[in-house]
């Protein structure tokens, strides 16, 4: 499979590694969170059937993290975009 790195262009999937759900930010001040809220940040992630925004890292080349929207049913990557940008598709 080819994955389009937003910095390098399309590259073979073996150059990348996976980083779980995207857009789960580290809380501004963890100390004010309840145990339940902190546990949600640590351990809870979505697991949808269909399009899913997730983090990938182009570890064998530019070493950059970026985001991808992937359809978990077909593995088709619908879009890739740079960290800090919002998903171009939903």
């Amino acid at each position, binding site marked *: *499979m*080819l994955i389009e790195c937003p910095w390098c262009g399309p590259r*073979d*999937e073996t150059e990348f590694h996976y*980083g779980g759900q995207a857009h789960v*930010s*580290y809380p501004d*001040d*963890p*100390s004010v*969170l309840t*145990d339940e809220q*902190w*546990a949600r*940040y*640590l351990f809870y992630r979505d697991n949808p059937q269909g399009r899913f925004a997730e*983090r990938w*890292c182009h*570890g064998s080349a530019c*070493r*950059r*993290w970026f985001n991808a929207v992937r359809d978990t049913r077909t*593995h088709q990557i619908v879009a890739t975009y740079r*960290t*800090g940008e919002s998903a171009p598709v939903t």
Partner: protein
Amino acid sequence: MDNEFRLANAGRIDRDRPIPFVFDGTEYLGYAGDTLASALLANGVHQVSRGVHSCRPRGILASGVTEPCALVQVEEPFDEPTLAATTVEVCAGLRARGLSGKGALTSRPDPARYDTMYAHADVLVVGGGPTGLLAALTAARAGARVMLLDDQSELGGDLLAETAPLEGRPPIAWVSGVCAELAGCQDVTVLPRTTAFGYYDDNYVVACERRTDHLGTAAPERTSRQRMWCIRARAVVLATGAHERSVAFSDNDRPGVMLAAAARTYLHRYGVLPGRRVVVFTTNDGAYQAAIDLAGAGVPVTALADARPEVPDDLAKACAAADIEVLAGHVVAGTRGDARISGACLAELRDGRLQGHREVDCDTVLVSGGWNPAVHLFSQAGGGLRYDSQLAAFVPARARQRVFVGGAARGAVTLADCLADGARIGAQASRTVGLSADAAPMPAVLQRTPTPSTALWLVPDPSGDYRRHYVDLARDATVADIVRATDAGLRSVEHVKRYTTVGTGHEQGKTSGVLATGVVATILGVDPAELGTTTFRPPYTPVTFAALAGTDRGALHDPVRVTALHDWHVAAGAMFENVGQWKRPWYYPRPGEDMAAAVWRECVAARRSVAMMDASTLGKIDVQGRDAAEFLDRVYTTMMSTLRVGRIRYGLMCRADGMVFDDGTVIRLADNHFLLTTTTGNAAAVLDWLEEWLQTEWPHLRVYLTSVTEHWSTVALVGPRSRTVLRRLAGDLALDNASFPFMAWRDATLAGTTARVCRISFSGELAFEINVPWRHAQRIWTELCDAGADLGITPYGTETMHVLRAEKGYPIIGQDTDGTVTPQDLGLDWAVSKKKRDFIGKRSFSRPDTARGDRKHLVGLLPVDPDLLLPEGCQLVADAELPAPPVPMLGHVTSSYRSPALGRTFALALVEAGRHRVGRRIHAVVDDRPVPVIVTDPVFYDKEGARRDG
């Protein structure tokens, strides 16, 4: 007599190059261009093997990769198990024997080379028959970068066994013309003997090229034997042809039963007669030409049984002219014979019943149950299939990738249709990659409209006995086996496959898969379209592990990393330990010493005098930037921003869940410049971890991370006399405690070499870590050896390092921890800042689970028997008597050594509420027997820390 079944002047073998070979202990003669199967048939050898379970004699059914039963073990030139005789080319030095299903792996190391090529193509054409050739030619003329792969030794596909003229010439002349034009194109790569076996996403096709197998013992030594081609193509043309299938009738497995097209291939391509007296059984037009050609070669064709009630006029007439009796609406109901066939039973099939049995003598039965388009690669590419009832076969439907299927692979039956397909899809493929293409002109060819075939999968048996109606000859699976599966309630062909093993042999059901679907459909009385096929998975044909590995084997399997001092260690007789990819000296035995004695001596030297270790494998990360200090405060539990330039601090990293991830030291080189060390095995993971946080959470921080592990060699100089040795090299660098205190670093010139010297100790002794540029390591190491020679300076390895640090209770992250251990569990609260508002992991320390009082703590253990060395990993329990399972576990031993300083054995362990058990007796389970141990503080040696200043 040699080659008594070989025709005098037919075939494409090279009669000037005879090749002797040995099969089952007998020497035969073949020719260059023969397969083992064609050469055996030429010599009258039909029986090659026996059924894997039934042990029944088995012959040669097919002529290529579909062969289910003619399996051999090649013994020379190199052992290879379970090869089909139809795919082994006769080569110099070939020796083989027949197999009943199972081959044996060799114990000899494989001396051959294997390699891998990565290639890109505009248009990749798989299959070099008429369709593929014309597609490749069209794309090449359009200026495309073309790759053409074919699994045979020469291009042409079925044209190699075709006699009808093409453009008024023998077909092979047309093939030669196309090949010559392709060879003259600059961007065209043609690879014979190359099988595309895997088709993955985004048109990634993997193929195996057999480069020297056909040369046998004459293969050049330096040329790779097989080569993997990993090809990324913008468009793919699949011209993979079709596979003829058999029909399930009684005793259809005897040697002498052969697919009709295979017989035609043996006749025309290899000049070999399959037998002396032939019966033909068909469900379609295809087998007629084989009958007519064999009759033309002088072989009597006793009868041609066509299961269809009406036969095409033109074919009937041609048969009459060749003196072949055609029996419409007839089948072969069974065969007889000892090993080889000696006769067949013909019967009329009317309304699903057999009548009018008639015995005929023959030594060969040619069968054609129809053609299965070779949709394997198309299906692997995500393409869907549909059932074509005219063809009684599954054909490609919608494609998911940019792939074009043509010729017999999409169900085309006539040569004219195949050629037209090739020209059309070659142009289509070229256009999708942005080239303007005209289809290459079609060569003139005889046109004939085929009549539909009939879907006959199974010849009914009057007695209802289907135990010898074979479906899968590779697995010895019969119609009776399938009946047993459907009687058990199985309906899905995937389930039937797993229940009966049909299609799980070396050829993965090329002749049996669709036949099994047809048989199941017949039994259940449903349409095969409802059942579908089993899944087509890579590889299309068997691939050796050696080819998949390519050059990645032996020393290249995984990179070996060595330090700049490796040669010195080898010369000093070091034993090595693998730490990640690094080779690290483990201990340096002197003559007569075992490991325990060597480690004991090394430990004593470090504690009493002076010793040195190559610590270069420690991970080193250079951190620079305006926000470097702020960044380190966030990722370490320890406060780093308050560290002064010139000083060093121990640091602990946790994951967000509060569990210890790595530890090391942080050196402040300048306000905005730090150097971190990591554990040897975790260097890459730590760098990745830091990059991840920088890029994804804190991109506004101006920090730059660089791995400098291999820029700096590190020598640990350890022991009460280390200062004495260093002073001899250090010139005017002040080394006293006041000028150069513990956890400080100094730039220095040691024996003319620029060095950074750190006062860090991982042993509790006075110690210096000397960092020099990698290329100067040999020099500084030798200088230290010389400078300390009179003090008995002793090189030591990782085992001694472990003993020394464990005596001090210093944990090794990854050995004494396992990802479920907090700093507090390790007793490292002192390394966790209370002042910082936040750092990674901090919030988790107050989670109820992490704050529990009965978590496992790192403690020391002293076995009551001071000579007993506890095995690392052994379990800890409370009592001397093991209760009935499940036995409550208290924890496990993480490190265990013999200590020269203590004069006894000791261990570190993770123990439930361990710090509350100090002084108490618990038990370690050694060889299923609980032995008593006393829980202690983890620091065994110099608790006051008096020795670190020398």
